């Protein structure tokens, strides 16, 4: 059998190295790599045999499984084990789309393009790895591998407070990773799993008592949660976003936050269902807090990027809520939401970046009526905002609808909290559009030009994805539901 995932990893690795080495031609190398990656992901999709209800041979429940011995000690059985299921496949698609869009969007990067594009590719490589890894160490390795390039991207190409932001980002997520690692290790050793493989851990974890599961789940939840980010461990996010270069912001919001969600699903929810059940109240509380907090804080932001960043907290709060429900409907919603948020927030961050270098500021009250001068940019902002506030026919709608439906299914009238927050979400996007896009022209430099072609194309890709998957969400949903999550009643 063709080791497709390894081939993809190799492609990305080779592409990354080549990009680092190719100097000023780096953008071409990066683009070629990204397109190859996209094509390979397409092949992954085509070959994915589980439409729906996949139960494959090899690694149960996963397609394209590969497993080679890596570190075999008497008490540690660590393998290079990879594979995909519906959940990871959708997020891999997100990775590929965002990578292509980011590379194209950043076409005009002049400062050390080889390093910049190399780091971008490295980030995506790490994310891809996280999504395919089915071994705890491998997973953790990729998980951490994402941090380093992102640290450099923020710290070198970022805004004025980039050093502070980079450090904050690194330290926050690193601490979380550590707690997560302890949780994962404890998971292996307390369950007595025979190896670090997902399937082994999953099987062994069934034997854990409820209390142990609950504690392990909490540790894992904290570890993954900071990446989400959950309130009150979220303050790294706005700073990181505001200071990060646009490309990094896109990857940060689009992919890095999803790592938290994916990790929580794969390594906590699936493995420790009764832990989830016990800790559900905590998760709900945190989720509601994040939803309300992120949204209310978005209202008070003047900086466009900061506003979008806080709205990410809000959206990821809904993801957490959906995951916490512990139903397969909720998980479907969570994955769908992550995909949607990845695309849409990418679009919004790109818009914010373009606003910044077109007008020299992202301060919303200092801008006004930019539409006549920069119609394309304004359109992108509008599409992004509308998608973000859940307009039907755009990708967020089916996702949010499913999430709310799942919330209602699990929590009944509590669904009114996220529902009501939808109004607040609408409020800040509308306020932003009113101030920035409409009204009399203000703060527009005389030499302001509309989007350069590459930024337009980069955003265009995301707009296309927003619309296509918004109208045909079944493309994603059918894949996701093909991976029934073990451990839930009724599935």
């Amino acid at each position, binding site marked *: 059998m063709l080791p497709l995932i390894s081939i993809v990893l190799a492609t990305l690795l080779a592409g990354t190295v080549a990009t680092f080495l190719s100097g000023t031609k780096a953008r071409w190398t990066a683009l070629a790599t990204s397109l190859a990656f996209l094509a390979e992901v397409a092949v992954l999709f085509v070959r994915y045999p589980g439409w729906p209800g996949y139960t494959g041979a090899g690694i149960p429940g996963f397609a394209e499984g590969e497993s080679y*011995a*890596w*570190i*075999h*000690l*008497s*008490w*540690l059985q660590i393998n290079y084990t990879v594979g995909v299921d519906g959940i990871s496949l959708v997020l891999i698609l997100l990775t590929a789309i965002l990578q292509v869009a980011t590379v194209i969007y950043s076409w005009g990067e002049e400062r050390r393009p080889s390093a910049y594009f190399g780091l971008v590719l490295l980030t995506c490589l790490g994310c891809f790895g996280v999504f395919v890894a089915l071994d705890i*160490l491998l997973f*953790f*390795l*990729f*998980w*951490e*591998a994402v*941090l*380093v390039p992102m*640290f*450099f991207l923020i*710290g*070198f190409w970022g805004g004025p407070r*980039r*050093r502070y932001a*980079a*450090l904050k980002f*690194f*330290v926050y997520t*690193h*601490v979380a990773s*550590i*707690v997560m*690692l*302890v949780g994962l*290790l*404890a998971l*292996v*050793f*307390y369950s007595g799993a025979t190896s670090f493989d997902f399937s082994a851990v999953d099987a062994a974890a069934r034997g854990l008592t409820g209390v142990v599961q609950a504690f392990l789940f909490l540790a894992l939840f904290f570890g993954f949660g900071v990446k989400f980010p959950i309130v009150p461990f979220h303050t790294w996010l706005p700073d990181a976003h505001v200071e990060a270069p646009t490309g990094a912001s896109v990857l940060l919001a689009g992919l890095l936050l999803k790592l938290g969600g994916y990790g929580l699903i794969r390594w906590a929810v699936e493995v420790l269902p009764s832990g989830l059940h016990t800790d559900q109240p905590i998760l709900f509380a945190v989720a509601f807090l994040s939803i309300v907090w992120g949204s209310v804080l978005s209202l008070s932001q003047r900086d466009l990027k900061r506003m979008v960043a806080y709205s990410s907290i809000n959206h990821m709060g809904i993801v957490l809520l959906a995951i916490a429900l512990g139903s397969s409907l909720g998980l479907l919603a969570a994955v769908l939401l992550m995909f949607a948020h990845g695309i849409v927030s990418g679009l919004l961050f790109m818009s914010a970046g373009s606003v910044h270098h077109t007008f020299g500021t992202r301060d919303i009250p200092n801008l006004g009526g930019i539409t006549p001068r920069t119609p394309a940019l304004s359109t992108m902002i509008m599409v992004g905002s509308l998608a973000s506030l859940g307009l039907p026919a755009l990708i967020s709608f089916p996702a949010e609808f499913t999430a709310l439906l799942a919330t209602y299914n699990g929590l009944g009238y509590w669904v009114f909290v996220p529902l009501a927050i939808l109004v607040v979400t609408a409020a800040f996007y509308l306020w932003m559009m009113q101030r920035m896009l409409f009204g009399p022209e203000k703060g527009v430099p005389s030499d302001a030009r509309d989007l350069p072609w590459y930024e337009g194309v980069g955003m265009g890709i995301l707009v296309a994805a927003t619309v296509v998957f918004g109208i045909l969400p079944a493309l994603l949903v059918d894949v996701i539901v093909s991976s029934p999550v073990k451990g839930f009643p009724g599935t």
Partner: protein
Amino acid sequence: MDVASFVLPFLPEVVLLAATLLIFLLDVLHVRRTEIVGALAVAGAAVALLLVVADLRFAPLASLATLPAGRIDAVGSPTALFAFTSLGLVFQGVFLIATLLVSLASVSRPSDERGAPIFFGLLLLATLGMLLVTVAADLIFLLLAVELTSISTYLLVAYTRRDPRSLEAAMKFYIIGALSTTLSFFGASLLYGAYGTTNLYAIRLAAGPVGFPVLVLLGYGFLIAGLAFKATLVPFHAWAVDVYDGAPTDVTAFLAGGSKKVGLFAFFLVFLAPILFVRTVGGGSPFTGAAVGLGPVFQLTLGVLAVLTMTVGNVLALLQKEMKRMLAYSSISQAGYMLIGITVGTAPAIAGATLQIFAHVFMKGAAFLVVGGVAALGIGPLVDDYRGLGTRRPLLSVAFALMLLSLAGVPLTIGFVSKFVLFSAAVQAQGFFVWLAVAGLLNSALSVFYYARVLKVMFFDPAPAAPADRGAVVGASGPSILPAGGLGYGRAVAIGLSAALIVLVGLYPQPVLGAIQLAAQHFVATGA
């Protein structure tokens, strides 16, 4: 006694001794050029290393369980002064690698330095002491071997004899070292009084209630203090920072990469038996009246020391402005991690600690070599002096960054693997030890602060206006041989080799880890 059968097992040691004597002979003959003497030292260390590796290689590790007679894993005897363990062999390898790297880098020292033979001779003698520690089965033999290392390193620190900083460092090193030696021997004397022997194996055999619980505990307490000096555990660490700072940087590399590990291995040897063969202190402690096992008492005490060490080391490193002192504090905190291995006392933990020690040679030892090289480029000792190094010296900076990332435990580096194995072993042991792992992990998170700061300074901050590159080599007049961008080839090779190993072992640790694991298993199974 059959001379051959006595000497053959000590072939690496003999080779080192021969090289040392040859170097001193050359000194007497006024052949003192650094490259000649250095090459000799490198050759000696390399041959010894090859012999050790060959020993490891040819003794089929997989079949170690069957206890082959000969060099490896002879069960200790109540009378023998030394016993060869495969873990000791692994440590010999580690020590020789450290020596090899340092001597390789030191070949790039000024070629007409008068003391070159002394430098390399002392280096090899110190190494010899370290090698002998690994085979010790007797407390006095062990302590004397440690002293051989200590005395040699006191003098190595004072090696730049015109430098007041160097001498001040040597003075402090000496006084604290001598005090610790006294404490160690005093502890040994108490144990001798309690057990009637100083043989570690014999002490282990004296399982069961002991007649002198307080004496035993006091004896071990003195030993903890004495050995903790060598291993730089808090609060016995204070000398280390000043000494690492004041010593010639290459010597610092040796101290951090090599000689402090002696203390840790001594901990392994001395404390494994009491920890593993949990012994009831007869009649109970006179202070509490409760009969308790010796093992848990030691584990708790060492655990506290481990946590204290890593925390204090890291906290103090946070605000440190000088590169060497920062690395010194970091080195102290790393000792805390390593101590977890013996505290937990299981084979996985010992293996993890051993790997951590192995890794530390490449991370910290090589990092000091980089600092030495950077100083030779005329760049100042402060962290802030490294501004813009990333653009001016990309390769060197990347290598340094790799070492720092590895120290921070970032994945894909050897430092990650070692911490991973170590902490997973602690988690595996469950109970109290999980908290050790948590403390260790939180500490490594804390450590990220200052490592990241260096990275930030190197890569993000702009270079100072007038780059002082290719400045005069500090503290020496002559040109260095084989300049590799001002570093010297020897140093460049040592740094490059370390960086490469950091990544390679980080990616695929199985060969190294497999060997260490078997050795650790065996070590734990057969005891000291």
